[in-house]
């Protein structure tokens, strides 16, 4: 498993030479500076860029960050995360449109639903490791796809359209662009911070130990399966939160969000940005969404471009953008 994520973690970096702790401190200072600049940039962004575009990027960035919690920090490649993203989008869209639920409660409802799905899928999927885990999650998410295709509340091929944005806490009108933008930004930051906290908690360190050497973690007395399941449910819940936000922002929930292609896209975002890095998935998501927007109007097939980037990333560029940047700075 250790070859999967080459980006140096705090512990492995410190082992290499005596100066490493100082560099590590430098690196985390740079990280903090990047975070502050990014947040300030995001606060100012809606005055310069089309807000719906940034909000879409934020939703997918959170989705990829949640996915990276599993791939980057536990070493589990889930090829079925679209089920949680798209499933939560359906739940939230239905709750808002049919039950008239308040948007924040609907998002919590969607994320909780995704977490529950994650529990069921996780219990089955963690029975296998490595590539089998990827195949099992892919197959189970395909099953969920067919279920969503057939149950009446999703409206099959049409999806749930015209989802109202509603009033946040019955007070703030989310139809105003700036209101919904800052609502989505706060949710994104909350989700992002949650992942950061999980990764840097004692629990997160156990997860990384499992990634590096599962057998050793078992022999140290950790109940590895429980840790994996907990991480899986957390990842599914936050991925669901991202899907719920997407349903409110774009006012639509469709089969595209639960299809396996979507699972592939989130893998690509994470791989491109840098798996096992905090900022990588968000950067990857921003690039992929920008690229899709750019090529949507042209004659070039997006699937082929995504495939080409996939192949290039795997062959030449396995650390991803942030992973390469960290490596250069460490030199």
């Amino acid at each position: 498993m250790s070859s999967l994520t080459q980006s140096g973690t705090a512990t492995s970096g410190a082992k290499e030479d005596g100066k490493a702790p100082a560099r590590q401190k430098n690196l985390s200072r740079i990280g903090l500076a990047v975070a502050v600049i990014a947040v300030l940039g995001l606060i100012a962004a809606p005055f310069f860029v089309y807000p719906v575009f940034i909000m879409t990027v934020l939703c997918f960035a959170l989705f990829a960050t949640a996915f990276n919690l599993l791939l980057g920090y536990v070493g589990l490649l889930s090829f079925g995360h679209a089920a949680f993203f798209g499933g939560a989008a359906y739940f939230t869209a239905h709750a808002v449109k049919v039950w008239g639920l308040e948007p924040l409660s609907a998002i919590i409802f969607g994320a909780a639903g995704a977490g529950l799905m994650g529990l069921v899928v996780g219990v089955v999927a963690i029975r296998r490791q490595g590539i089998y885990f990827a195949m099992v999650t892919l197959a189970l998410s395909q099953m969920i796809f067919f279920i969503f295709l057939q149950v009446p509340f999703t409206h099959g091929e049409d999806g749930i359209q015209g989802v109202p944005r509603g009033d946040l806490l019955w007070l703030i009108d989310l139809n105003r662009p700036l209101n919904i933008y800052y609502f989505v930004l706060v949710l994104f930051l909350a989700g992002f911070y949650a992942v950061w906290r999980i990764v840097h908690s004692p629990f997160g360190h156990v997860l990384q130990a499992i990634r590096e050497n599962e057998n050793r973690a078992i022999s140290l007395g950790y109940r590895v399966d429980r840790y994996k399941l907990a991480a899986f449910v957390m990842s599914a819940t936050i991925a669901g939160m991202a899907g719920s936000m997407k349903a409110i922002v774009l006012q639509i929930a469709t089969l595209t969000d639960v299809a396996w292609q979507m699972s592939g896209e989130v893998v690509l975002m994470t791989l491109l940005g840098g798996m096992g890095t905090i900022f990588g998935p968000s950067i990857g998501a921003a690039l992929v969404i920008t690229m899709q927007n750019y090529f949507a109007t042209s004659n070039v097939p997006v699937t082929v471009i995504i495939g080409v980037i996939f192949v290039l990333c795997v062959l030449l560029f396995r650390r991803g953008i942030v992973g390469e940047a960290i490596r250069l700075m460490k030199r």
Partner: protein
Amino acid sequence: MTMIFGIALPALLGQLLIGFINGSFYALLSLGLAVIFGLLRVINFAHGAQYMLGAFTAYLLLVHTGIGFWPALVVAPLIVAAISALIERTMLSRLYDLDHLYGLLFTFGLALIIEGTFRWYYGAAGQPYATPQLLSGGTNLGFMFLPNYRGFVVVASIVICLAVWLLIEKTRLGAYLRAATENPQLVQAFGVNVPLLLTLTYALGAGLAGLAGVLAAPIYQVSPLMGSNLIIIVFAVVVIGGMGSIGGAIITGYVLGILEGLTKVFYPEASNIVVFVIMAIVLMLRPAGLFGKEI
């Protein structure tokens, strides 16, 4: 009319036949996946794309050069195998030393490129491919009507599966292959060209997918996305059977095809998901799969 459990016998047999046909394709494809995985330790996500490529090659040969079904049955798989061998040599072979997930991700990207290109060029709609003249029409078996071509597919798939099984279990090449699966370094030390063996194995697996594609062309339409949903079911089949044995992959393929056909008769709503449900149950009871040896 004869009834079984309240279902008309012809309807039951008809679905059983469809299940058996689907099972033939599951068996052929999971066989190819198992052969590739056995030696290369790569889950070939491009298997569905290679299946589609086989069908499309047959279609293009017919449209552009007038080459019919029978020659295409040989030529198309060879073309698919040659293209795949080239890809293995130039790109996939660089990933063997890394985590096995990279092989999966690489072949996933490959599948997107192949399917995306064909979809862009030919659209998502299916192209019909005529049944070969020799096998048109059908035979009345007394209890049901069997289209000749479908009967041929069932027989052909069994023959192909047996042939591959014999190749791997009974020939010298197969012995090298099995030995290299156990310990590639040692086999290399005995003077066997292992990298060549890897390339040939990938070409064999991909060629089998291409062959399945040609066989499928007259039954299902030739369309760019014909392989993409199929491959996920085949993954589930492979998880159920376990990758340990070639024979296990074949048997699981047929059995699941038939179970799926039966589900269509008794509870049609669940026919899309029955394979995945069985996979979940097998994973809970026997995580290594029915024929798996590991863990």
